[in-house]
């Protein structure tokens, strides 16, 4: 019997499950071979340990092991995908970059015209919006181009501008009216009466134009007159607030 045969039969030998002859041969070899005797001792010690201690499986360690196994099975697939993706992107970008500066002459002309048109529109819109706050909104009648822009919503229509202006003026009126109220007790009676009479006159004018504009919002002249009347109202309040 050689060592290999002996070490294969050691475990069965220790369990006393070998034939007597084979068992005698193994025992003889173990007595002559120190290496196989050492293996047999180790086996014997393990068997002895297992028999004396109840080894319970560590559930946590077991799950950890299972998890590791699963991850090892799944990750290689993901890694493979991740490794493949940059390759696709790189190829798409490269393709786009390679075609980016390759325009036909018609595309170039169309682009230049588009940029010019957008710039003009933005300039007009900017100027219109700037001028709307500074000037009388009704001074100029909107042309077709402005009407189209108004419809699209790029610039405010005259009605919208008027409404915005009226709101602004109303805020100013409220401010000066509050100041006037604190001072009017100091005025002479005839001055107070004149103030009330004229303020009432302006309010009447404002009311009339308001009515006209409700019926016909496009009436630019009435819009202008309404604006003028509101300005006069502000001016009247401002002047009397100084008294």
């Amino acid at each position, binding site marked *: 019997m050689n060592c290999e045969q002996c070490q294969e039969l050691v475990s069965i030998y220790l369990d006393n499950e070998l034939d007597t002859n084979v068992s005698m041969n193994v025992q003889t070899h173990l007595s002559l071979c120190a290496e196989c005797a050492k293996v047999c001792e180790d086996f014997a010690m393990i068997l002895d340990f297992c028999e004396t201690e109840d080894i319970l499986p560590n559930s946590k360690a077991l799950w950890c092991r299972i998890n590791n196994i699963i991850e090892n099975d799944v990750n290689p697939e993901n890694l493979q995908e991740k490794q493949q993706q940059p390759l696709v992107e790189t190829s798409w970008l490269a393709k786009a970059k390679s075609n980016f500066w390759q325009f036909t002459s018609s595309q170039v002309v169309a682009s230049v015209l588009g940029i010019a048109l957008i710039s003009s529109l933005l300039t007009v819109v900017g100027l219109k919006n700037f001028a709307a706050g500074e000037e009388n909104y009704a001074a100029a009648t909107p042309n077709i181009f402005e009407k189209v822009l108004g419809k699209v919503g790029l610039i405010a229509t005259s009605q919208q501008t008027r409404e915005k202006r009226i709101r602004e003026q109303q805020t100013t009126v409220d401010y000066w009216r509050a100041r006037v109220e604190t001072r009017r007790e*100091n005025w*002479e009676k*005839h*001055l107070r009466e*004149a*103030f009330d*009479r*004229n303020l009432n*006159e*302006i309010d009447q*004018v404002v009311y*009339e134009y308001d009515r006209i504009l409700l019926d016909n919002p496009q*009436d*630019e*002249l*009435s819009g202008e*007159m309404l604006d*003028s*009347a509101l300005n*006069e109202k502000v*001016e*009247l309040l401002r*002047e*009397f607030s*100084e*008294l």
Partner: protein
Amino acid sequence: MIFELKKLLGFLAKKKTTILCLSVVFFFASSAPDISAQKKFSKSYPASKNVRLLLKNRTGTVTVEGWDRAEVKISAFVENSNTKIAPENLSGTIQINLVKDNHGINEVGSVNFVIKVPYFSSVNIETMMGNLNVTNVRGGFVKAHIATDGDITLTNISAENVAAENMTGDIFFDGELHSGGIYRFSTTSGNINLRIPPNSSFLLTATAPSTRNISLGAFSGANMNLIGNGRRIIGKVGDGSATMTVTSQRKSISFIRR
């Protein structure tokens, strides 16, 4: 009865002198409080030909007249003796601001001004209430502004810039238009009458939205356009060298040939 009447008449005839004297005394006595209530303020300043007068009154009539003297003479008739009048002469500008000078004083009362200025003066007068009259002024500008009630009368004016605006009251302008000049007349509730030479040339924007009563008289012509169903007239008279804007929100506008 007849005898008694004759007796009474005889008595009155004898006392005629006494009655006459008493009547005179009574007349002066009744008008005396008015005289004593009106305090007069007067001050004169030597002035250059093209002096500027800035006046801001509260209530009362202001009359400014051009004269052939290098002097500004201010006369003010003050209703309330508490009213402060403190004219300032600042480098060619004579300034009177009753609103600022009497700020916080409750009963300022009316102040009626009569101011004489050199012909070529510029005049800017404002008041909260009361009439404004400017006569014989030929300076750079004439501006008259009434915050509430009062008429504006500008007579024999020859200035490059003229502006007259009030709320309730008429505006009358009688004068010449300069080439390149700007003329603006505006009232909320008042008639505007403009008397100008027949050879005047100007660009006109006249608006009378409530009445549509715009009478161009001798200045109506082919170069006039009616806007907004006649609420506004825009047009050119002559070569249109001056600019005239006239607005009467609730009353009429009339042009008269000078």
